[in-house]
């Protein structure tokens, strides 16, 4: 048999088989994505394994799909391996639709997420601070508004720019290499600290606490450095997500 790459018709049939198994699963977006990629790679490997013994790519495709089995059965089996936490999380998770994945749509969702997350963190910090100091602090709403403003000023223009650039590169193949994954973890960890930095800044501005400059400047600096970096990484991630969702959601999986 010749040494050709998988044709688009064969690739489509493989993707439909994978999607039939994965789409009905009660699992998080990330788990489904992992499953799709793993099962598709499996079909590719089987296809290339049997291709040499087949008279045509069509025959190799049929043998690969026959070996893959009934996607409905695979769904049932896979569902048993989905952890309970994952099943619960998927109910609360917002799964973006292709229509939501415009720069403005993403921006809106991120605004809700970041402001909400910061509000929760700030509330926790405020309560802890109040308990420790034993007297009420200035209105938390003031601090919240400062945080939201800082988030918007530092984070969103960069994210919008990153997504616009990402849109321009939609035709190109972006690959997440190891550096990307590591930096994403680092930056997500940094973003989790964002409310703490903002609280430090707020306390410093309100003059409620005397914070040494040696502690404040890393907070300012890291906010200014990590904010834009996180925006760029998130922008790229969402563009990749959009391409990914468009590709799989378009598949008709009905028999």
């Amino acid at each position: 048999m010749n040494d050709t790459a998988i044709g688009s018709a064969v690739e489509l049939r493989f993707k439909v088989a994978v999607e039939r198994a994965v789409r009905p699963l009660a699992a998080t977006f990330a788990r489904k994505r992992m499953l799709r990629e793993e099962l598709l790679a499996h079909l590719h490997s089987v296809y290339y394994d049997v291709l040499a013994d087949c008279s045509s790519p069509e025959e190799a495709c049929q043998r690969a799909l026959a070996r893959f089995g009934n996607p409905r059965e695979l769904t049932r089996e896979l569902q048993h391996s989905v952890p309970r936490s994952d099943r619960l999380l998927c109910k609360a998770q917002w799964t973006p639709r292709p229509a939501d994945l415009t720069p403005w749509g993403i921006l809106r969702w991120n605004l809700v997420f970041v402001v909400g997350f910061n509000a929760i963190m700030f509330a926790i910090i405020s309560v802890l601070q109040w308990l420790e100091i034993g007297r009420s602090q200035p209105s938390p709403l003031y601090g919240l508004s400062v945080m939201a403003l800082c988030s918007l000023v530092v984070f969103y223009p960069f994210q919008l720019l990153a997504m616009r650039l990402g849109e321009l590169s939609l035709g190109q193949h972006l690959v997440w290499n190891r550096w990307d994954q590591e930096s994403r973890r680092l930056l997500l960890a940094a973003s989790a600290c964002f409310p703490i930095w903002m609280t430090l800044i707020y306390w410093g501005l309100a003059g409620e606490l005397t914070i040494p400059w040696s502690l404040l400047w890393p907070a300012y600096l890291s906010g200014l450095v990590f904010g834009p970096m996180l925006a760029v990484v998130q922008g790229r991630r969402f563009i990749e997500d959009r391409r990914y969702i468009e590709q799989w959601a378009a598949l008709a999986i009905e028999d």
Partner: protein
Amino acid sequence: MSEISGDLLRGHLDALILSVLERGDAHGLEVLNRLEQSGCGLLKLKEGSLYPALHRLEANGALKAVWEEGDHGRRGARRRIYRLTPRGHRALAKGRAQWTQFVAVVGPILGAPA
């Protein structure tokens, strides 16, 4: 001899997978192939049984999975490579001990001692 599949493998599948991964890291299809080769073609395992078992073992900490880096001249999507962890080695030792005990107890009852 007839093929061994489905329910006959259930209960031993985890230990079988751990055992073939003891020989070296492998992706899902390679695990299937190793099992079939080791079983002289008589072991038949479907993807529907393999991947849930691999994911269960990964969730238990017996396996660690990483995405393949680079295509190494290979065609197709990148694959997930499974590796035995220290906990997996311990689970395999336990699985072997359980199997030995199972055969020692059930074999004489069936009139087919090991």
